[in-house]
């Protein structure tokens, strides 16, 4: 495997992270970690300027791994995967470290402990990043039909929208007629029109 050159991007997330975690200390600690070629601190890493910093650093330092220490990967993993891919790095060579949901937001009054935790999380992220491998995603064809379970007002509307959009729809209803609960109502608010 080629020698890892890791860039670590520590995000303040405005004050979301920085008001609890000492992001400066995290960045300093990251500089000492193995294979780290550069450390950048951002106000908002997910915003365009933040992403541009990542791309710039990849070009300048010849980075082949990226660690983004910001929020949950469940939130922004696709964002940063796209970002590094645009800069020519395989998206699977990007690792996220969750300093927000799992740290600053839940340890608001434990600033020191939260900073220590943040450094530990970044150290683990960097260690993992060094061993990441490029991956190719599979493209799979999609069956152009939809199943709608439930024939109440919601299911009917969803089925019609999909069908009008040109898709084949299977609308499955457990009762003998569609209509659901709404068909049992006389009038519905805020207008007073008939429900059927």
């Amino acid at each position: 495997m080629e020698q890892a050159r890791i860039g670590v991007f520590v995000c303040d997330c405005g004050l979301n992270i920085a008001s609890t975690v000492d992001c400066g200390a995290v960045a300093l600690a990251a500089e000492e970690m193995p294979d780290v070629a550069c450390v950048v601190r951002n106000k908002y890493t997910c915003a365009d300027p933040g992403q541009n910093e990542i791309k710039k650093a990849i070009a300048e330092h010849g980075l082949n791994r990226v660690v983004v220490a910001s929020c949950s990967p469940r939130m922004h993993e696709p964002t940063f995967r796209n970002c590094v891919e645009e800069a020519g790095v395989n998206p699977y060579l990007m690792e996220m470290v969750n300093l927000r949901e799992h740290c600053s937001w839940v340890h608001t009054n434990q600033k020191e402990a939260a900073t220590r935790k943040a450094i530990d999380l970044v150290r683990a992220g960097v260690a993992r990043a060094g061993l990441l491998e490029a991956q190719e995603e599979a493209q799979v064809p999609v069956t152009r039909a939809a199943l709608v379970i439930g024939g109440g007002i919601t299911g009917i509307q969803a089925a019609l929208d999909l069908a009008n959009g040109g898709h084949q729809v299977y609308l499955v209803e457990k009762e003998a007629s569609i209509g659901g609960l709404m068909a049992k109502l006389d009038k519905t608010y805020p207008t007073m029109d008939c429900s059927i």
Partner: protein
Amino acid sequence: MMDAGRHSRVSLMTLSEVEEITGYVGNFHVKVRRKARYVDSGKCTACGECVNVCPVLRPDEYQSGLSTRKAIHIPFAQAVPSSYILNMDDCLGNNPIACGKCAEVCEKDCIDFNDQDRIEEFDVGAVVVAIGMDVFDAREVPEYGYGRYQNVIDSMEFERLICAGGPTGGHFVRPSDRSRPVRIGFVQCVGSRSRVHGAEYCSNICCMNTVKDTLLLGEHYPDTESKVFYTDIRAFGKGFEEMYNRSREEGVKYIRGLPGEIEEDPATGNLLVHVENTLTGELEEHEFDLVVLSVGVRPPKDRDRIQKLLTLSKTPSGFLMESHPKLMPVDAPTRGVYIAGCVEAPKDVKESVCQAGTAAARAGNLLSAGEVTIEAYTCRIDAEICNNCGQCAKVCPYHAISFVKGAKTPPTVVEAACAGCGTCGSECRFGAITMRHFTDQQIEAQIDAMLAVDPMDQIFTFACNWCSYAGGDMAGISRLQHPASGRLIRTMCSGRVDESWVLRAFRKGAPMVLLSGCHFADCHYIDANRQTVKRVLRLWDKLEKLGIRPERLQLEWISAAEGQKFAKVFQVLEEHRLRVTKEEIEQTVKVLEEEHLKKLAREAKQAAKRAEKTAEATA
């Protein structure tokens, strides 16, 4: 309804239930049970001759049991499909001595007593779950007398009684004596916003539904005297406040306070409502001819079944969980599945229609794209290391590993079927399986790096991506404070967590290790987390044998919605952590180091043997 029934691209399957869904985003295979209707809906012209001769009377479900139907019947006049159905539980049967009258009079010959359930199978790319809601059963609030007092009805019965298509043709009468009630009381929040009966959440629709009911009554019978007992009137939507004001201007009295009890006068059937008016602080009594209980919304009964079919999650209140409450409100955690309508949360018609449109658009985007990218989390088997034991194939929840017992060729992975839980990887005793993007080496490096500094302060945690890690995110979003000792490592499934990783964390000085995953029914890899349990049980045994307190390894199920539980777990574990002494950790590290050295020696021996074999083979 009609449009859906006749749309050329909508295959309508009524009296049908989804029995099985397999596959993955873009490629689901569906099995639907189409229950026997005993009437051919293609031929039936809904002439109604069969109904005239059917001798069986049963309460009519559509009319909330306020009138009767026959064993053969049409669900309601505007039903789609417009066809009769024969309820076999009610029917006397085709034995001529017993009955068979309907079949005799049916000119189109569309009644078939031998009709049977059929299974239909088809493929789809996307699924929309819109299974709706149930209505709270007011019998659960005994002090209001629903079910005991004839003139206490619920809001669904009100709908039928005021409807021109209802059992009384729209003449609003009370059940006990069929007289027209003039003094009518409405009780709000029945089964909602209560810690005693029903649920704590607000059912969203009941306030405005009652406002609408009072206006309907005023329109039909201007002399009606309506009073509404409420907690707060929530008239927050477009045009709602105006409607509420109109109701008040028309003379409806709104009294803040929920009745403590309702009594019936047995002589008149009238009802006496006892209530504390919380605006005046006075105890009041009101007499009514009829009381309407404004019942709340409950999650649908089918939820568990559908949840399991599609591995969805639910919130603590029992409705289905979306991927993100604000940014992905209709995406289910399972890709390619969308949720809409009341199964997501109680909502009115307009919101249901909006959400249906959103879900259809999201599903439509996926279908129109024609192709979908699958994340590269699949496993690979190294044929050279593989010992052909077949354990991986045994534990794979997707049967994605083909293994033939006794065959000389090692098992192979069907990549399209592999969902990436990684259970096979942690079950393989020979280290022959590589889980892409979650390799042993990557995770081990994380463990070592995390515990490199002050391991004593850490509660070392393995969390599955879908539930426990997301539960931690939920704790974050909700700012639920907890001790800062937790250190999480994410794997896709708790089933990926290798026994050796847990031992490694202890060996590196962790005082506590937590393994956390989805609740059983929520597991995103069918039942891969059952392997987690087996593994933890084995680990507890092993720790005990090594003289390490098993309590230092904990297993918790935390769902994506359970931010509170996540925070609570760490509060409890912190207490455990503080009880683990430095000496205890040193002892553990010593014992496990010795074990580790033994293991390394064993592995070296095995590797040498393998090398010898390969050399022999080449020679």
